[in-house]
């Protein structure tokens, strides 16, 4: 009887219509200045698109995230591997890691501005910081959960320590590294928005923050949507990459799971 609701495209579009409806209803009740409805958000977005700022801001935010995230991951992966592999280093590093990872990136903004200047370096450094600890901790966890049997079997087949690291520990750790890098993308977006709100003249964070001066809540909504979409698409892209390229290492993409 209710079979039609099980069809995915029907249920999904119904859900979206319902969400848009509730959103619009909210706009009616509280007024468009408090809750800009779907329509006024769209108009605001069009406005920002036409004067070119929106694409520029998305571009600049995306560029910062990408650079910081890639560099941060590239530094963090070998560090995580070393900390995980070498007991002596781990004993010293672990308390430090567990201390500093509770300090959110935003808390460092002022210091990073002082240390790295008000240019791009400070923002990229902030994203590297946001990426670093998550990736290190995940890599480290991965290294430590490599089964002893795998290492032993490699060793008894003649692998030396370097070969064990390269041919056993790294491939066995790839799913953990992947998860870490993927989670780090989320924190990178959070970090960059914070940084752009406080210390930038461009970027999506700047747009959201600056819109308050003109009381353009519709622009804020546009900024929020952009962030959501940017995160969503980069995550999907990364998940797809993981599933395609890293399939043999047991990387499963959560977003693209099929039953």
């Amino acid at each position, binding site marked *: 009887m209710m079979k039609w609701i099980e069809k995915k495209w029907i249920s999904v579009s119904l859900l979206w219509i319902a969400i848009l409806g509730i959103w619009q209803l909210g706009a009616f009740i509280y007024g468009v200045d408090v809750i800009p409805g779907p329509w006024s958000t769209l108009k605001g977005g069009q406005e920002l698109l036409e004067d070119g700022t929106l694409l520029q801001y998305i571009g600049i935010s995306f560029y910062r995230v990408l650079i910081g995230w890639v560099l941060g991951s590239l530094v963090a992966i070998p560090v995580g591997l070393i900390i995980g592999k070498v007991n002596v280093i781990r004993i010293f590093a672990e308390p430090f890691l567990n201390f500093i990872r509770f300090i959110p990136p935003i808390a460092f903004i002022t210091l990073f501005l002082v240390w790295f200047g008000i240019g791009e370096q400070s923002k990229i450094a902030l994203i590297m910081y946001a990426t670093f600890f998550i990736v290190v901790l995940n890599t480290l966890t991965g290294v430590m959960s490599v*089964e002893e049997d795998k290492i032993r079997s490699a060793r*008894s*087949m003649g692998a030396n320590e370097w070969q064990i690291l390269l041919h056993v520990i790294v491939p066995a750790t790839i799913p953990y590294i992947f998860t870490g890098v993927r989670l780090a993308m989320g924190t990178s977006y959070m970090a960059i928005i914070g940084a752009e709100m406080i210390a930038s003249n461009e970027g999506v964070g700047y747009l959201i923050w600056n819109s308050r001066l003109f009381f353009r809540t519709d622009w804020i909504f546009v900024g929020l949507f952009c962030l959501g979409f940017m995160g969503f698409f980069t995550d999907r892209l990364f998940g797809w990459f993981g599933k395609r390229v890293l399939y043999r290492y047991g990387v499963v993409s959560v977003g693209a799971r099929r039953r």
Partner: protein
Amino acid sequence: MSLPAKQNTIHIEQLRKSYSEPAAGELHYIIKDVNLVIKGGEFFVLLGPSGCGKSTLLNMIAGFVSKSGGNLRVDNVEVNKPGRDRAVVFQQADSSLFPWLTVRENVEFGLRMKKTAKTERRSISDRYIALVGLNGHEEKFPKELSGGMKQRVQLARVLANEPAILLMDEPFGALDAMTRRTMQKELVNIWRETHNTVIFVTHDIQEALLLGERIGIMSVGPSSNITDIYENTLTYPRDVASPEFYSLYNQIQRHFEEQD
């Protein structure tokens, strides 16, 4: 002049493994004063109840676990680390195979570490994949295989390194009864073809009797030891239903009952 054939004899004298430091007071031994000589090419079974230290002894021969006392020599060379000459087949294929490598790549792992040329690697892996009966599965990943097939991969993977000694730690323990029978038969065939020395750990009396030329019985730990060695001269393939098999089975069964 031809080189003397390698005997691959394993000499174990007064071998001990303790697990607490002397400072903590009394020493606790997992195994204590084990004496054993295993001849090259022999199929030796270590039989004993769970937790008696048979895996520890096997891991010491493999070089994974260091000894606390005594001597352990292979061809008069003291064992102190793992080596290519002593291959290990683990109980759990899932934890020891490399899931990111295909069957062929798993089998070629040791050769790759040794930097053997690709074409040679290929011909060696072909030979051992055929020997364990995995033709047609070369490009599959371990997770696509059944438990028995995974153990075949483990076997092919270590045999590809042409080891002198095969150390097997309850390799068929996790398999269903039917698959286990098949694997036992094939292991005997492979052993007779490759002339490896095999040390096979099990707690299953029937398995021990189906496989071993000699069966070393380990006492219940701690401080466990090889208390008796049974000779099994029945010809392969062995018939579980034969009276000789049955009487040997009972003999060993009684042995364990008396220990209780």
